[in-house]
């Protein structure tokens, strides 16, 4: 691996007319890294990818690839393979010809190009479809061909725009791990754009969360999950419960936040001033449900409104009266032992440990807007 960063964006902005699609973005991606750019539709992810590919040029700022400035260099001279959302396989060429396009365009002989194409097809296990045309293949296969085509040009950089977007949910889970494995085996740097935080969390070395054209946080998945820097992030990546309140007591390592009359939440940490307007948030899977009362802190009674299956958890919606409604994710085996599905309608108790409570300053916009409820 080289020591030069594979991609470097320095204060890049892109404006279309009056819309600022990308807002002063600075990024550095190391050689061989698998980075996911995560964000909702319209956040500018595709524009970012196209800027790196050279399909559009920044309004201000500069871009470097492998240490060389490429800000206004045309795409064919950048050596960054781009795979768009709909794959854009060349419909009039066979699979083999599609994959051989890159080397051929770069000046390799037809024989060499086809040899490389065959190598790539073997890698994605589609050698037996080399003579087929794109429209004869399933969505999953088309995606693999698009990848093989991108990799055949031996670019050190792969830019993927929602590569798994058009694929069924179940297949997506399987294919994304294969995608990561392929990239790691070949040692390519990957920028993978997606709106699916589960996808990003499961395969990225680092995630850049993009919102309205600017980067909210660029970190390892565990750090974005464990230490999100804003309520938006806590909600968008992983989901959480949120309670607005005011800091009523502050000690060395403990803060007490009043969220409703007579009820306060204890949180470890002391970053916020006394009297400050804050938002207390805690992850749904760190919210436990107890069937009997006790004198622990952060324990409150509520009515179990509904239960449903969610992955390896039982998702329980609890009505806490004037405090509001919260969601608890209880590991399935535990939930079945507690017979929670049968307890819908009963009074139960909800608890979140003080270390699990993250505190943020109250955002400028109303919390609902900030969390992008619609």
């Amino acid at each position, binding site marked *: 691996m080289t020591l030069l960063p594979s991609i470097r964006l320095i204060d890049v902005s892109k404006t279309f007319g009056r819309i600022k699609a990308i807002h002063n973005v600075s990024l550095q991606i190391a050689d061989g890294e698998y980075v996911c750019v995560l964000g909702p539709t319209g956040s500018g992810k595709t524009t970012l990818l196209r800027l790196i590919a050279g399909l559009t040029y920044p309004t201000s700022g500069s871009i470097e690839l492998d240490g060389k400035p490429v800000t206004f260099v045309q795409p064919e001279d950048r050596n960054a393979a781009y795979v768009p959302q709909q794959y854009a396989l060349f419909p009039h060429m066979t699979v083999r010809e599609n994959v051989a396009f890159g080397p051929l365009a770069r000046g390799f002989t037809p024989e060499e190009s086809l040899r490389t194409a065959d190598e790539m097809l073997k890698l994605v296990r589609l050698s037996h479809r080399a003579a087929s045309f794109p429209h004869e293949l399933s969505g999953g296969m088309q995606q693999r061909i698009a990848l093989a085509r991108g990799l055949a040009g031996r670019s050190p950089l792969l830019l993927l725009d929602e590569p798994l977007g058009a694929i069924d949910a179940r297949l997506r889970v399987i294919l994304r791990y294969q995608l990561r494995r392929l990239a790691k085996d070949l040692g390519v740097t990957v920028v993978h754009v997606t709106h699916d935080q589960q996808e990003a969390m499961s395969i990225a070395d680092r995630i850049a969360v993009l919102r309205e054209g600017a980067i909210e946080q660029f970190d390892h*998945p565990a750090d974005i999950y464990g230490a999100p820097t804003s309520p938006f992030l806590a909600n968008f990546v992983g989901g959480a419960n949120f309670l607005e309140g005011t800091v009523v007591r502050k000690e060395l390592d403990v803060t007490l936040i009043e969220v409703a009359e007579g009820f306060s939440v204890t949180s470890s940490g002391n970053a916020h001033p006394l009297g400050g307007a804050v938002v207390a948030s805690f992850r749904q899977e760190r919210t436990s449900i107890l069937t009997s009362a006790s004198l622990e802190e952060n324990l409150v009674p509520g009515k179990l409104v509904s239960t449903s299956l969610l992955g390896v958890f039982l998702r329980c919606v609890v009505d806490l009266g004037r405090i509001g409604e919260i969601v608890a994710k209880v590991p399935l085996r535990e939930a079945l032992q507690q017979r929670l599905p049968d307890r819908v309608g009963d009074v139960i108790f909800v608890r979140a440990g003080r270390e699990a409570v993250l505190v943020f300053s109250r955002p400028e916009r109303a919390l609902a807007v900030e969390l992008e409820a619609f």
Partner: protein
Amino acid sequence: MPDIRIVNVRKEFRDVLALNDVSLEIRDREYVSIIGPSGCGKSTLLKCLAGIIKQDSGQIYVGDREVTALPPEERHLGYMFQEIALFPHMSAWDNVGYGPRVRGEAGELARQFVGQIMEMTRLNIASDTYPDELSGGAKQKTALARAIAAEPQLMLLDEPLGALDAHVRGVLRYELRRLVKELGLTAIHVTHDQEEAMSISDRLVIMKAGQVVEVGTPLQLYLSPKRLFTANFLGEANFIEGTVEESNQGQITVSVKGWKLNFAGSGFVKGERIVLAVRPESVIPAPDDQQSDREWTGSVRDHLLLGDCMRIEIELENGTEIVSQIPNSGLQPIKVGERARIDFAKDGIIPYQFPAQGLDLELALE
């Protein structure tokens, strides 16, 4: 609100048999999801129910009324499309008011009615807003309001969240259920997203290649799927092939590539080929520092912190790969390359006869 009965419906397209004698019963006020891989026929079934496609044979009853030959406008249903299909040339409000308008209702009363529906769906949109100015989620909510405003007896949802961002999907699906339940409607929701279906349905119908594979509540189908396909399609599962060594007194011993596995079960014969489905959360890994040749040990190939849970891929000594997914306990996971041993949770092992057509075909998701 009536029960829905689908009786022996068959539909062929050119040379593809989309629906192969499908029969189904849905109770009043149920929220039922029909799920399956692309091409399984779920959308075709929904369209036959709506009258958008005409089935080749079979009958459809809504309550006591046979609707088999009726055109869509006479079936009193609400339909949500994957493409959302809000009329681009009308404002959002006019879209929602379309149902009342074609019934001949107009004027102030109709407008108030539309306002009520908008409030119920928690839509805060100005009366001069056009669909192309709305976000994906707001568009689909408007489509929902529009369907509800037509006062349907039955809600049909055709991959309603397919065109939306993952995050929006995760939030809006609970809204769909809430509204349907609040209005006391029966809902039939088609999707390829099993997580979505499991999280909001009263019952699930699993389809594959034009036929109904299995029907049950989410918990039933997740914890005790009757078919291997269901075990693979609904949630994730490890599939372990082996041979039955012993089966008596409610205990089965299976040999898997030289190792043995013991669990509660019956109905299998010694020497029979068997497939065991084990959900990732039933595979419990622990560090193994003993260098002995114990069974069910191996090395960690990869571990991923997925936020609320941890996914650990282990390559076992006997050559099988196994995946474990357990809630994030905050403890340090076993490092990649280190040795681990696995335990299986009690009643976490579901046995199946080895399928005649081979395991790959049976499990195929495409």
